[in-house]
């Protein structure tokens, strides 16, 4: 069996940045396994701009952003296999992969970084009633058809869900000649970035109907019409509020689900909130030497944060490989309460962590003029005012190792939303 120090599952933005960081931290033997025919992951179909403002201080398209990292991987001569599907990861970190040329490949890794990304929630998972005709696509599938293959999935479009891909596709479909009639969002707030609402909907006069959902799909062969209705606070449709839109296409942008089937097979514990692995400050899962980063860990709003996080995972995996084990140290749990839905990481090791640690999370509702408060046990440590916080955008708290050193008996850290 061929052996590598580090095997990275996925050659999207997370996998690429993790590989670069691991190499820069002294790991020679690295293999990236990518199931698609090229590196770059979902960025390849994100041909709009707005990527890289944090990382490169300039606005890049998705493929351009990916290319920057692909170049770094190639400069460092990091090995990768394309068109290669990972079938299984064992508890012992034996990775089973498959491709056309080599057939089934068994590979032993000292450390594994999970960077498989996420998938879109389907119509079936949303349990939308109605017919099941052609013309219903997840926004990402439509994005692939339009941006990579040049085919239009429809002429008259209704979009359910205001996730970023849905917003981006509202603009794209409009630019390519289709009519986007309405975007309906179940929640009373958008699931996407504010800038996308402005640039993709408002600039094109596409109405966004908050607290609305699809209650019926008509058409036996191809979508003929979609009915949306307002929902109450219980998110159930309110009878009498139905509006029927004739259209041939329904795009769905109703949430992303980290793709952790392989993680499960390896025995990785998952969070019911994020659907991603539960990790500590080094982004290590419950299995020694198995790390996670990017959208497989939790769904990010900006790729820049994916790259940062993946860099951390790569660096920590390198340290693990050099040490040959995970340090045995005291762990402190971070408790997300009062509007904070989860944190990544969930556990930190005050003696092992970096000098500063970025804890990322999302809030569960829209908060105006509130503050993010951090408590060490019952003591308020920091309070940072935020004019607006929304579930569509990630928030963060930075923890200082030096500060934690002052609290040797710390039981837990609490992060919550408070009045400013």
């Amino acid at each position, binding site marked *: 069996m061929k052996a590598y120090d580090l095997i990275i599952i996925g050659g999207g933005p997370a996998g690429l940045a993790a590989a670069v960081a691991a190499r820069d931290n002294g790991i020679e033997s690295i293999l990236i396994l990518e*199931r698609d025919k090229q590196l770059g992951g979902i960025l390849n179909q994100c041909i709009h701009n707005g990527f890289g403002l944090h990382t490169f201080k300039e606005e890049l398209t998705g493929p351009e952003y990916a290319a920057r990292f692909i170049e770094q991987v190639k400069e460092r001569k990091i090995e990768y296999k394309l*068109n290669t*599907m990972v*079938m299984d990861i064992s508890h012992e970190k034996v990775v089973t992969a*498959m*491709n*056309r*040329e*080599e*057939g*089934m490949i*068994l590979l032993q890794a000292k450390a594994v970084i999970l960077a498989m990304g996420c*998938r*879109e929630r*389907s*119509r*079936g*998972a949303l*349990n939308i*009633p*109605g*017919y*099941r*005709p*052609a013309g219903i*696509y*997840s926004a*990402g*599938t439509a994005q*692939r*058809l*339009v941006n*990579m*293959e*040049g*085919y*239009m*999935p*429809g*002429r008259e479009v209704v979009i359910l869900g205001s996730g970023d891909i849905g917003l981006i596709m509202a603009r794209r479909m409009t630019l*390519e*000649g*289709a009519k986007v009639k309405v975007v309906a969002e179940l929640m009373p707030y958008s699931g996407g970035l504010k800038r996308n609402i402005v640039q993709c909907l408002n600039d094109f006069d596409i109405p966004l109907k908050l607290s609305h959902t699809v*209650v*019926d*799909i*008509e058409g*036996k*062969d*191809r979508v003929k019409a979609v009915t949306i209705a307002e929902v109450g606070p219980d998110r159930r*449709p309110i009878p009498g509020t139905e509006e029927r839109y004739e259209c*041939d296409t329904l795009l769905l942008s109703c949430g992303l689900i980290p793709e952790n*089937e392989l993680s499960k097979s390896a025995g990785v514990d998952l969070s019911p909130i994020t659907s991603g692995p539960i990790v500590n400050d080094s982004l290590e899962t419950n299995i020694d030497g198995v790390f996670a980063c990017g959208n497989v860990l939790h769904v990010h709003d900006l790729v820049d944060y994916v790259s940062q996080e993946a860099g951390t995972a790569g660096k920590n995996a390198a340290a693990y490989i050099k040490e040959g084990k995970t340090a045995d140290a005291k762990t402190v749990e971070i408790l997300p309460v009062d509007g904070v839905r989860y944190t990544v990481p969930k556990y930190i090791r005050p003696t092992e962590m970096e000098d500063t640690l970025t804890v990322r999370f999302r809030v569960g509702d829209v908060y105006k003029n509130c503050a993010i408060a951090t408590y060490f046990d019952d003591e308020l440590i920091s309070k940072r005012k935020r004019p607006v916080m929304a579930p569509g955008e990630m928030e963060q708290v930075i923890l200082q190792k030096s500060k934690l050193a002052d609290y040797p008996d710390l039981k837990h850290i609490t992060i919550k939303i408070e009045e400013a």
Partner: protein
Amino acid sequence: MYDVAIIGAGVTGSAIARELSRYQLNVCVIEREEDVCCGTSKANSAIIHAGFDAVPGTLKAKVNVKGNAMMDQIAKELDIPFKRNGSMVVCTKDQDPKGLEVLMERGKANGVPDLQILDREALIAMEPNLSDDVVCALFAPTGGIVCPFHMTMGYAENACSNGVEFSLNTQVDDIKKVESGYELAVTHTDSGKKETKTAKVVINAAGVYADTLNNMVSEHKLHITARKGEYMLLDKDAGKHVSHTIFQLPSKMGKGVLVSPTVHGNLLVGPTAVDVEDKEAVNTTQAGLDSLGRTASLSVKNVPLRQVITSFAGLRAHEAGDDFVIGEAEDAKGFINVAGIESPGLSSAPAIAVMVADRVKEMLNPEVNDKFNPIRKGILHPDTLTLEERNELIKKQPAYGNIICRCEMITEGEILDAIHRPLGARSLDGVKRRTRAGMGRCQAGFCSPRTMEILEREVPMSMFDITKNGVGSNIVIGTNKEL
């Protein structure tokens, strides 16, 4: 002129076609849709019933038990997934357990083997997720689960390989009695072309439309009501929630719903039962889907409804007489009805096919087809192979090393097989039903564009002609900026 025209390529029509291919007969199956298995046969409980449900003496009772007994051989010959997982009819504390005894007596009279009534303790040992209210159950070890797509395709492909012609995308508009048999006016739904087909014998296996066809030639009118059944299919992660098929004892509140593993490892919950006017109304409804979860919880606790990956509705062909109608119409010689085939139709199909073929044999007295081969090979699933075998396969056919559907881990090799075998797939749903590509948790979000590329290259066909499931269901409608 055909010896036999079979109208409808569902499981019944396809099974009859296969049985008739044992003889030297010129047989044509006429199907309105673009593929076999597109009506009632594709959207049902996927159960091979033991046969205790039907009233003794009815046709349903007779062919169900017979069909069930034939399934092991059929599954072997046609290489289709079938498992005798056993069924339970559970009785809750608010129900009269005498109902179970009635079913058991019926079952015994129908010839169902090994029925027994089990108490809660025995049940919980077998099925720990039964609801706390379940007190006892009728257990039928011969009950089974099957893939209805593969069962129908197995029959159809085997019939096709043994010489039966299939005319897909062909709708029967009218049937006329003529001296030598029947004249069928048909429209090819893809081209719009009309033609007339003639046959000595017509077999009406047209599902919810069997009454329309019968009523064209017979004064003994049939009346078929479409009875809608809505279902939810859950992720394979939930597939082990129960291992037996769990039925509910019918009560004043209705027949209840079943919770069952599928033969592919998902969990199925359903069906509802609502009579509908529109025989095309395969839409799900909010009320129907809502009711499924509630009703399922009466027999099985903690059904993980959050893991639903799709919901669908099928229409059962319910005949007013409440039994299968199988046989020659009295006033239309040579016109054989196989109508009202609602549940347990899938279970009964093997026996119905033999019964109908015997009747045709009497009528036409055909020679035996010496070349008849009962064996059909299903699509090879590489995950059933050892690592070494799989590597051998990929070396010979590299397409088996290329995963197209990530959720179900379906390879390009399997999709090529689905396209190039007899009655090969021509649509995304055709590929899906044959291979399961697109049937997993992402519901074809990822593999659709890739499967389209393969169809475009292999059939070959234009990207613009690729459909989800036939005429009018095109996936893309133009290229960028041309609208």
